[in-house]
């Protein structure tokens, strides 16, 4: 597990290093969408909640909703930004 973490840290640094300033905003926004992967945890926790645990279900519902906002909104807005860079 630790091995995994350290490897990911280096991959993250390697991937971002040397990126031109032009792309910093889309990159930040794209990275923002990727941490929306937390929604996988939200779905997982919902699947493991018993149907009569209303508090957890309500919290889980909002967790999935907010996670989706993060993911969908993040990718769509990044795409919009990058689409404009393509036009020449």
């Amino acid at each position, binding site marked *: 597990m630790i091995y995994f973490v350290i490897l990911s840290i280096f991959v*993250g640094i390697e991937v971002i290093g040397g990126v031109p300033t032009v792309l910093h905003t889309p990159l930040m926004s794209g990275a923002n969408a990727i941490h929306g992967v*937390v929604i996988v945890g939200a779905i997982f926790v919902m699947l493991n909640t018993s149907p009569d645990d209303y508090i957890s279900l309500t919290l889980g519902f909002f967790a999935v909703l907010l996670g989706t906002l993060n993911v969908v909104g993040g990718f769509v807005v990044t*795409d919009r930004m990058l689409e404009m860079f393509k036009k020449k």
Partner: protein
Amino acid sequence: MQHHILSAIYIIASVLFIVGLKMMGNPKSARKGNLISAAGMTAAIAGTIFLHEGEISSIIYILIFLAILIGTVIGWLTAKRVQMTKIPELVSMFNGMGGACAALISLIEFHHLFPLHPAEGIYTEVSSVSTGTLVCIISGLVIGSVSFAGSIIAFLKLNGTLEKPVRLPRYNYINLVILAFVVGVSIQLFFTGHVAVIYTLLTLALLYGVLLVLPIGGADMPVVISLLNSFTGVAAAFGGFLYDNHVMLTGGILVGSAGTLLTIVMCKAMNRPIMQVIFGAFGTHASASAATAKGNVKDISVADTAALMNYSRKVTIIPGYGLAVAQAQHAIHELQTILEDHGVEVKYAIHPVAGRMPGHMNVLLAEANVDYDKLSEMDDINPEFPNTDVVFVVGANDVVNPAAKTDPSSPIYGMPILEAENARNIIINKRSMNAGYAGIDNLLFYNPKTSMLFGDAKSVITKLVTELKQM
């Protein structure tokens, strides 16, 4: 069997994230890279839902799909409709949602471990819960909440709702005390699994997030957004630890480390140590030094500006956030085209932190179809200013302020700037003499070579274009 397929999907998704992020580092492949990451995300989400083992009641599936549906519609519409000038606000808002998601997961896990109404005689003992699980729950909750509360404050600040940096007296000490409480209450959770304790922790963490971002203002905001972005990444990674879920772990850590690196790059571009960004703010002790150096300000008319530009060989435009707010991107592109038709060489000089985020100005100009090759980065254009006839500064302040080089008492001292003062003529378009985003006066305005062209960027540039058409 399904378990193994899901593991494989998670590995593929992780690889897609890495490949996608790598491709986003190059303008040519960036868009494809973003779509590849999105594909990875879709696979991870679909796999989690459909490959889950065990009996699940249909109400839970309905709730999950309903939440995804609502989130998709709202997220999609907001992202499609937002103005490009509002990107930093939006990134901050979406980041806050991710943080909140991480915090909610921790809360639910806590409820699962310590049920509110435990069945007779089966109270969960704290000692029976593994330390690792508890550490992950606490970390996810605290980091996620700080990220959420901080992002919302950042959103409100960028939005203009919270305009002035709010500074409580001795706020650094107050924050330290709250942080100490956060640690204290977290430790208490190792002894008692009481609901009141975790909700106290939640409240404290939210309060800490608010107070952390509240005093920060001006040009430091993008650094804060980037920092909070990496916080949410780390919060997601703790979720990965909690469930031994590799896609959450890679996704979270990837963003955590990439975000940290971006934060450092940004701080370097502004020559601001990260500690100073968090524990000190722009514009609070700057007025004293700048006030002494004031001189005379010279006005220039639109007609004279047009004539000056028309008979120049080389004009460099320095766009700032003021241009974007006035929605003058398209007008400036028109100005560039007409000047080029008249045989003038036109370039744009882009400061690394022009706009509200690094690279934000490039996005705004790209929206107006300004050719990519016309944009010059700071280090390339600075040596060219002595040969430039006219520098046209539109809505930019701090990125051309010579105080960064000459005045050691200035808060922006040491920040690399666009050396506009070396050009033969400097024309500055501003609405008034008010100080810029960082709240400090600009010596360039009093330079004998400088003329001020007052007015709203859009109407001024449109008038310039009309004048030029008649020449």
